[in-house]
């Protein structure tokens, strides 16, 4: 950077000899500062105003018992946090987030890897397939929710389809059965998000040099051995990023659940976010809701930091780049 400035100076000196040197020297520094101010102030204002400030507001309001009207007078200390953390409904919601996260790890990600490995084997119509697999991801979660709500209506499309293929006896009240509704949500979320993982993994696979597999084959490795010992380890960075994104996503699930069940019946499909809106916003307990929002922030934030610190750290810079075609 300093090189650039010296170039400026010499160039100006060469062209215009007459103007005195002093102001010419001082003004670039001033100018630079002015430029930086102009460039950085608006984005910083927007970011601080609408990202950091709300978090500060939540941290502050969370200390009060407040219903959204009038001044904050009823200081409650950490009472809101205590109520939230001991509320069985909130604990249940957190548990649901964790269940969704675990299911994503043990079901979604292995399926994504298997499918990605298969798709990587050169197949006709690959670009179309890629397009189709990724398509649900770009739909609004709200619209996905409405779509599945209609599909899963009792006697609706899903039930009729199952009856048509002879699976009629497995038909359930997909959204009303307390024991099933959470897993229904998981299926819908999987439908929307699994394509994303597959695309990420396929891109990661394309970054692995073919020669490695060929060399292993020459040395007598079977296809499975090559996959296990060479492909999967090299795919590690992509898989670790995918795990990260899956868990962060699972902690924030809202739209689909809110539209399909509202977190019900009887909280059987609630998540932290639906609890937040239900108990904070809907019942005008803004102080309490703020505390819940802070807890949600902390959960996401702590997870992200821990994961970054202990898992992603060993991946070199650019793990993402390689993962993305």
């Amino acid at each position, binding site marked *: 950077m300093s090189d650039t400035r010296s170039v400026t100076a010499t*160039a100006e000196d060469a062209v215009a000899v007459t103007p005195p040197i002093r102001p010419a020297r001082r003004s670039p520094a001033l100018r630079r500062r002015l430029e930086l101010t102009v460039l950085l102030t608006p984005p910083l204002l927007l970011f601080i105003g609408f990202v950091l400030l709300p978090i500060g507001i939540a941290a502050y309001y969370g200390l009060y018992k407040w219903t959204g009207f009038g001044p904050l007078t009823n200081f409650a200390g950490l009472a809101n946090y205590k109520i939230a953390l001991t509320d069985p409904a909130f604990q249940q919601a957190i548990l649901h987030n964790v269940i969704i996260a675990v299911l994503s790890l043990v079901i979604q990600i292995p399926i994504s890897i298997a499918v990605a490995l298969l798709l990587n084997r050169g197949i006709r119509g690959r670009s179309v*397939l890629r397009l189709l697999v990724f398509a649900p991801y770009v739909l609004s979660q709200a619209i996905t*929710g409405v779509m599945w709500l209609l599909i899963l209506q009792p006697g609706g499309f899903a039930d009729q389809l199952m009856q048509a293929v002879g699976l009629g006896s497995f038909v359930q009240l997909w959204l009303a059965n307390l024991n099933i509704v959470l897993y229904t949500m998981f299926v819908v979320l999987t439908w929307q998000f699994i394509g994303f993982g597959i695309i990420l993994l396929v891109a990661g696979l394309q970054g692995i040099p073919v020669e490695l597999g060929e060399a292993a084959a020459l040395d007598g490795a079977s296809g499975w051995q090559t996959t296990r010992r060479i492909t999967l380890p090299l795919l590690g960075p992509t898989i670790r990023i995918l795990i990260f994104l899956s868990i962060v996503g699972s902690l924030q699930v809202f739209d689909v659940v809110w539209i399909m069940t509202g977190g019900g019946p009887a909280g059987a499909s609630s998540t932290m976010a639906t609890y937040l809106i239900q108990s904070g916003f809907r019942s005008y307990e803004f102080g309490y809701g703020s505390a819940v929002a802070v807890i949600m922030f902390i959960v996401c934030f702590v997870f992200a930091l821990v994961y970054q610190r202990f898992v992603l750290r060993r991946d070199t810079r650019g793990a993402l780049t390689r993962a993305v075609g």
Partner: protein
Amino acid sequence: MTDVSATLEAPAIRPGPTGHLRRRRRISLMTPLTYLVALLIVGITVVPLLFVIVDGFRSNAQINTSATGLPHPWVWSNYRSLLTSSAFWQPLANSAVIAVIATGLVVGLGSMAAFALSRYSFRGREGIYLLFAVGLLFPINAASLPLYLLLQKIGLLDNLLGVALPEAAFQLPITIVILRPFMRAISGEIEDAAVVDGATRIKFFWRILLPLCRPALATVSVLAFVISWNTYLLPLLVFTSTQHFTLPLAVANFQTQYAQDTAKILAFTALSMVPALGCFVLAERHLVGGFSGAVKG
């Protein structure tokens, strides 16, 4: 903390088509299985979408008796009545206005910040960058309630800006994280040459750097647009009058309001998918690259 930025710093775009050096595989036993799996995936993905689109062409009576197969006869009235009323067009326009404002803001301000953070050296530069990068970890859904309180205070409730501004703010981190390495990678000699030719820093930014960053700018624009287009919770809290509803909000609202008219809800849902899917088909490459940097949900 630095790790956060380190892993996410790499540009999520690489110009050029993917996998152009694809290997040619001999036909093996796995091939039929591969095609079977591919077919299965296509089925699972496409059947629900087809159901929505096709059943929009039925009457409610037809849906109740048989929701599968082709409609007999095809009923056009659901789509026709929606396409001729403001129920569809008004939220479409609202979504578009909000997405355009949010995208314009985030791409404009994001490239300014990325420029300052990539091609100037000054004290506190990495600190500011880290501040933005940490923003990646804050989900807009968790912030929705405090955002509501903030918007209430500054009088932006039930205002399109009340949704567009926070959306832009929450997109800033990923935009800067994608743009900064891209801008940094552009050779300093180009800048020197511009300066020798008498261009100011700002002129260099505007006339030379931004055009060179076009692929990255395309990615962040598409990313910001689609995310804004799809956001549900924030508009749900901010808008009280239906005339401001965005498309996802309008569909969900329509569903609760006309719960009995399944056919029309299906048609509405199908129509509301068209812009997103169309945009996706046109901008697929930018999206696939960009989304990997964004957090799902």
